[in-house]
Structures are given as C-alpha cells and as structure tokens.
C-alpha cells in the first residue's frame, strides 16, 4: 500500500497564468528512496510542498500517510519531515541547536503540552545520529551553513517522521558529510520511512534501488526504478529531450 498517493493533481499560485504542477500522479511506497530531479523551475519544490500541504492542491486527490491532504494538512505536516531548501538564521537568533532540534517535535506534541522524557530522548538520539553533539549548546545563528543544514536535518529526524522529504539537503555540505547523511537516510528507508529527495548533486547516493522521478515544466517525464549510478544519466537524457 502506498504512503503517498497523488492522483492527477494540479497546484497553482494565485495570479500565476499556468499551474506550476499539472496533471501529476505519483505513488510512493514505504521504504522507497525517491530522488526527484529536473531542471530549475520544473516544480520539484512545489511538489514537496504540495505533499505536506504547505501549498494548496487545486485539483485532483492526494492521500499522505492515509490522510486526505485537503482536509488534514496540519496532521500530515505533523507526520512528514521536510528539510526546506533556503534558510538563513541571523547571528542573534536566540535558539540553541538543541532547542531547534526539539522544535521538530512540537507539532506532534500538540498544543499546551510540554516536552516529555521521550521527546528529550528523541532529540538526543537525532543529535548523536547526525554527529552534532559538540554544537548542541551553541546558538544556531553562530554556526556555518553546513552546520545549520545538519541541525535542520536533525530537527526533522527527531520528529520521527513517517515520510522524510529533503529539498537540496546537501547544498552546503562537504563530500564526507553528504556520504554519511546518505547512509542515515538509507537506514531510514530500510526501516520503512520513504525518503523523497530533491537534489542536483547525485554523488554519494546509497547503493540501493532508487525510485527516480524526473520533472519538467510541472509534469513528471520519468517515473521508474533504477540503480544509483543510472540516476544522473537518466536525468540528463530526460532534460535534453524536453
């Protein structure tokens, strides 16, 4: 059974003359490692933000984690991890890395609830997993771009999501960090949490079967399973065709 089921969805921004996503159908099963590629402005980020309900779907039907996305957007966001593409934290941001990682669990805690022991344990585990223990007490605005990116990944791992979506998660990371984090995501997928990753850098992809989705101009032009070393050539071919 699919954990994400999109049927002929359309997504449009107000004032836009054309929908950003058109007639898009996608099915993702638990444990899949999905790579979403394609040229700039293909609609990749819009697709991720449609899946967690940050952007409204105008037509079609969408089910995520068994929930109707149109009715239960906030509940979907509680269950889906999403590492956003662009963020900037000024040096005076008054939150430590540990606090930011804990914020990943705020949605699932619910209103008026305080973090429990299990929340602190999940935060501790996520920080250790990503390898940022020495940064835990530092304020996030004083960290480098790569360290901030690792913090945001830990923020979403601490959430213990049912689906993990990542938008250009390695843009500020060196090769070793990329390879290490890819290993973490591969393990998550192995434990049944599907990974959906938008990326332009395909080095260090885990040696596993990849569900490759290539987008162009708001449509899916390729949707099939392939090996990690086939990802880049297929995307190049697909982008050259259109």
């Amino acid at each position: 059974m699919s954990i994400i089921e999109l049927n002929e969805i359309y997504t449009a921004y107000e004032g836009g003359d054309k929908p950003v996503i058109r007639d898009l159908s996608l099915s993702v099963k638990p444990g899949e490692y999905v790579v979403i590629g394609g040229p700039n402005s293909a609609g990749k980020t819009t697709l991720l933000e449609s899946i967690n309900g940050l952007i409204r779907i105008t037509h079609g039907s969408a089910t995520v984690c068994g929930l109707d996305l149109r009715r239960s957007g906030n509940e979907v966001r509680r269950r889906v991890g999403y590492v956003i593409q662009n963020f900037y934290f000024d040096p005076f941001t008054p939150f430590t890395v540990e606090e930011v990682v804990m914020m990943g669990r705020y949605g699932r805690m619910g209103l008026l609830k305080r973090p429990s022991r299990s929340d602190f344990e999940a935060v501790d585990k996520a920080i250790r997993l990503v390898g940022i223990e020495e940064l835990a007490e530092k304020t996030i605005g004083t960290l480098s771009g790569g360290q901030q990116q690792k913090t945001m990944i830990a923020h979403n791992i601490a959430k213990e999501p049912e689906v993990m979506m990542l938008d250009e998660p390695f843009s500020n990371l060196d090769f070793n960090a990329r390879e290490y984090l890819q290993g973490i995501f591969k393990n998550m997928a192995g434990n049944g949490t599907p990974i959906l990753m938008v990326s332009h850098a395909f080095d260090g992809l885990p040696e596993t079967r990849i569900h490759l989705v290539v987008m162009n101009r708001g449509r899916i032009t390729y949707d099939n399973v392939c090996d990690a070393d086939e990802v880049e050539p297929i995307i190049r071919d697909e982008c050259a065709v259109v």
Partner: protein
Amino acid sequence: MFGFLIENNVVCHAVEAMVFASIACGILGVIISRMSLSSLGFTMSHAAFAGAAIGMFLGIGSQMAAIFFSAFVAALIGPVSDKAKMAADATLGVLFAMSMAVAIFLVSYMQYMGRGLTATNLLFGNVISLYREDIYALAAVSALTVIFVLAFFKEISALMFNMKIAEASGVRVKLVYYILLFIVAISVSLSLNIVGGLLIFVLLVTPASIASQFCFNVRSMFVAAPMIALSVSALGVWAGFKFTLPIAPLVALLLTFVFAISVILSFKRRINYKKY
C-alpha cells in the same frame, strides 16, 4: 496595589500603570521584534489611537472603542495578508496608514469643534489621570500576556525561530499568531492612556531590542525585556514627578538612551582578537 510603598495616590497609580504596561508590552515586544513585526507595534498603537478618537468623537468610552477598533484591525491583519498574498509587514503598512488617517481626521475635526484638549491626551497619554479600573484592566492584561506565553511557549518559540519551519513541523501557526495579534491589540489599547498613541511603540520595541543585545536565549529575553521596561519606566515616573517633567516622553527618551548604551556595551558584538 503599591499603596503600602507610595503614599501619594496619583504617583502610586502612575507607577502601577507603568509596571503593568511594561510587563505586557515588554513580553509582547520580544515576540514581535524577533518575528520582524515591529510594524505590528506601531500599527496596533495607531489603531488603538484611531479607535479612541472614534470613541471620543461619538461620545462613547474611548478605551472600549480603542479596544474594539484595534481588535478589528488585528482581525484584519492575518486574513488580509493571506488573501492578498502580501507580507504581513505590507498589510500592516496599509492598516497603519488607514488608522492614522481616521485618527488625524477625527482629532482635527474635534479641535475645530473646540474639543482639542481631550483629543491631544490620546496622542501623548496622561499617566496622572488614571482611574483604579484602568490599573486593574492593565493588571489583567499583563496576567493574560504572561499566561499566553507560558501556555504557548513552545509554539511561540517556533514562530519566533522561523514561521515556515514551524508550519512545516505541524505547529498550529495561525491560531497562535491570531491570539498574539489580539493580545497585542488589547495591551496597546489599555496602555494608550499612559504613554499615548505616539509613544506606546517605544514600550513595545525598545526593551526587547535592549534585551537582545545581552541575552543569548529566548527565556532570558522574556524576563529581561519586561524588567528593563519596568525599571526604566519607574525611573521615568519618579523623575517626572520629582522635576515636573512630562512622563511619557521622558520614559521614551530614557529607554532610547539605555538602548544606545546597550548597543555600545553589548558583549555579543565583541570580536576576539587574541591569537592562540
């Protein structure tokens, strides 16, 4: 409330009003400054000012009218931003201009009608003419602000960190944001009598800005900002009575002076030139 400390009833009321307004505005200021919504402060203050002018013009209670009108503006900010797909700051700019226009129009008209003096009180406040009920209302809104921050601390922190990331985490962003707008509206409306529509902005923004120069975490900011506001306001009230000076502008100037000093002394800005 502070009658056992201060014998003079007028001074006592002024100090009590300043204390409660400082607590509410100091705490709310931390949130709105961090969310880059400083313009919320001046929009709400001018909305309250316009509401009070409407109340005065119609001959109904200026304070209740201020509360209703600023609550009305607060209710507009969120939906208008969402509907118009504009940044909240731009919506605030539009509503600020509208509020100011309503206020100036009515105040000018009242001056023409020979009722200018009471209208001017709205601009500059009048801390020495407060009733006991005003103080109780301010105490209630300070308590409401403290309860709001304690109850929704984690949601407020998430909003202050990054609104989009908070929303993506499943935090009920809109609910908390709308409650925040309403509490700001009520706090500002009730504080209008003390420092006036033009200076209430100082109480909202400056103490939080001073606290941000020294505090490394949000908890300490929530304690430091109202303490700074409270201390400086109390000093302003004392100096105002002692040297017969206008209290509201004096408090505003003192807070600005403390801000300037804090920017100079802030250890958060220091660069370590040591070689290791």
